[in-house]
């Protein structure tokens, strides 16, 4: 019995493996290329850059530029099999989302030279970057800068506009981990706040995780106890705890990456937006047009439409026109190059 089963199974395998190549060439000619992504350990539903890249892929699929596919990672150990597996599935372009797979994607790119890889939130060393790998990073500092302008002015000049604000002139930020994209957000935030309110005290706490909501909340309460009335979250799901604390203690939180107003409309003042959607879409478009080049680091910012500040929603009335004007002026300055936003704490003279 076992032997018959084994033979039948083998026959099936042979049949399957023989039949595949016969159909493939005909199909390939008319079908758009397969473009795939693998998420970081947070997976889809992070309401942030995993979802953003996936939206870019879906948009490209809707426009007939690509066939989209996503593989979720549940742990860091999934990164290598996912990145390599997608190339073996025939993907022409694979997005790897998240700073923490920066090593793994370089290995995968070397192992699969026929496939383009794009690492979201990555910047590679130019002397070792494989020719089929694209580093996609963002000018988070520009988003942080805009948020900083709002926080810096609201916490002092316009503190009377809301009972959530106090007269202590302290604002805060909660960081997930101290990694380059997070530091860029923070550097911009501090620079933006100081540009409109030189005396402001900006305090920040590194939670040490992007998935620990309770610790994000505790970090925020610590900042509130030290006088902060506006706290920027730069911490992924840990940042949900920042919003928890804002709700419980009656202060303002500023969201990051996407518009987080819906999480607690009364307590989220605005959000620093970093749109991975447009950068993913642009990359796929170039792939479809045949103009995509590897071996480069690309940076998307305000000028490229990847960075912005979210609307104030119901807080629109308490944010004076002068603050909105200052934000608009900074945006124009960043685009035309007259405003230079620092991207590291060292640029601000802060020792880490």
């Amino acid at each position, binding site marked *: 019995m076992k032997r018959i089963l084994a033979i039948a199974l083998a026959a099936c395998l042979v049949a399957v493996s023989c039949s595949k190549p016969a159909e493939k060439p005909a199909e390939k000619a008319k079908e758009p290329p397969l473009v795939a992504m693998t998420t970081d350990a947070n997976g889809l539903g992070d309401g942030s850059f995993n979802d953003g890249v996936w939206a870019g892929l879906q948009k490209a699929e809707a426009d007939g530029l690509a066939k989209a596919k996503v593989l979720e990672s*549940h742990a860091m150990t999934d990164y290598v099999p996912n990145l390599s597996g997608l190339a073996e599935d025939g993907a022409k372009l694979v997005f790897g989302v998240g700073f923490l797979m920066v090593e793994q994607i370089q290995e995968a790119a070397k192992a699969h030279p026929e496939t383009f890889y794009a690492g979201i939130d990555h910047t590679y060393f130019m002397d070792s970057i494989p020719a089929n790998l694209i580093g996609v990073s963002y000018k988070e500092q520009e988003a942080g800068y805009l948020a900083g302008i709002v926080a810096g002015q609201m916490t002092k000049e316009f503190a009377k506009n809301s009972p959530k604000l106090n007269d202590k002139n302290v604002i*805060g930020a909660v960081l997930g981990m101290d990694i380059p994209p997070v530091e860029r957000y923070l550097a911009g935030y501090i620079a933006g706040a100081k540009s409109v309110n030189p005396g402001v005290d900006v*305090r920040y706490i590194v939670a040490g995780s992007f998935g620990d909501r309770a610790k994000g909340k505790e*970090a925020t309460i610590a900042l509130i*106890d030290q006088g902060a009335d506006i706290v920027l979250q730069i911490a992924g*799901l840990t940042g*949900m705890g920042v919003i928890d604390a804002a709700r419980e203690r009656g202060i303002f939180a500023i969201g990051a990456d996407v518009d987080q107003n819906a*999480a607690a409309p009364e307590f989220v003042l605005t959000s620093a937006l970093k749109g991975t959607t447009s950068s993913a879409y642009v990359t796929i478009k170039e792939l479809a047009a045949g103009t995509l080049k590897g071996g480069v680091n690309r940076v998307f910012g305000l000028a490229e439409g990847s960075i912005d500040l979210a609307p104030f929603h119901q807080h629109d009335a308490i944010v004076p026109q002068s603050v909105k004007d200052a934000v608009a002026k900074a945006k124009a300055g960043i685009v035309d190059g007259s405003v230079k936003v620092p991207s590291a704490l060292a640029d601000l003279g802060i020792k880490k």
Partner: protein
Amino acid sequence: MMETLAALFTPQLVEATVRLAAPVILAAMAAVVCERSGVTNIAMEGIMLVGAFFAALVAWYTGSPWLGLVGGAAAGALYSLFFAWAAISLHFNHVVAGAIMNILAFGLTRYLMMVAYGRQGTSNAVARTLHDYKTAIPVLSDIPFIGKAFFDQTPIVYLALLSVVAWAWIFKRTRLGLSIEASGEYPMALETMGRSVVKTRYTAVVLGGVMCGLAGAFLSIENSNSFTEGMTDGRGFIALAANIAGGWRPVGVFLASLFFGFVDALQLRAQGLGVIDLPSELFLVFPYVATIAAVAGLVKRSRPPAAVGKDFSVEGGGD
């Protein structure tokens, strides 16, 4: 220097300590009860996560955080019943079964997020949280410095404190406590006395599950207002360390959990104040270094239950 120390050591620091410690206390108490009964339970992390999910689901669906609390505890009990079945009845290696429960919990809650809410990440917010029922106990909450931290608290924090007293009493004064003790030290003796080791261990694991479920409910519907994937973030393992550091005894484990909460609260607050000029990574390893130090320093004076982690069957002569 005195000024910064004064800014650091405030009553708020004690409050933060208790909040950070509360879920660890409950999970560590679960570890104590399971291990004293002879079952090595490393599944607290997963049980907590399942409890957190169902607490948020029930509280959201019914609108009542109290039903959510019951739902979280019940889910924790049911999920650990599964663990008990694998470890006790099917004679699985306890550590392997526990590891499976942890991994399964992560995937299960992720899947159930899709079923219940149609998305991943963060669940729908509950209308009311248990934090709305924060109550101060008169007189006790007026004790300077620590009064508010221990006696002006939310429901599950009180339950956590109560569980320490309850278990200390159960182990000292009751038949259940003695049975659990015997089941972990010399199960054959318990069996010879005509009491079932299997039943005792099931009871211990399920009661542990209730406490882990409560710890999960604390995270989702008391400290927050919704469930977030992976929100336990290693607390089940810290609880395991607290169990060892506290010498498998309720009061010792309570103090160890408080110590971990304190170290964490202290490092967060020190970062905000910028008191010590050190890289943030050093602050982050602080709780773990403290864990190692505590375990290394304290464990010498206590020992684990003799039969912990050992499979039991009457036919096998107790081994």
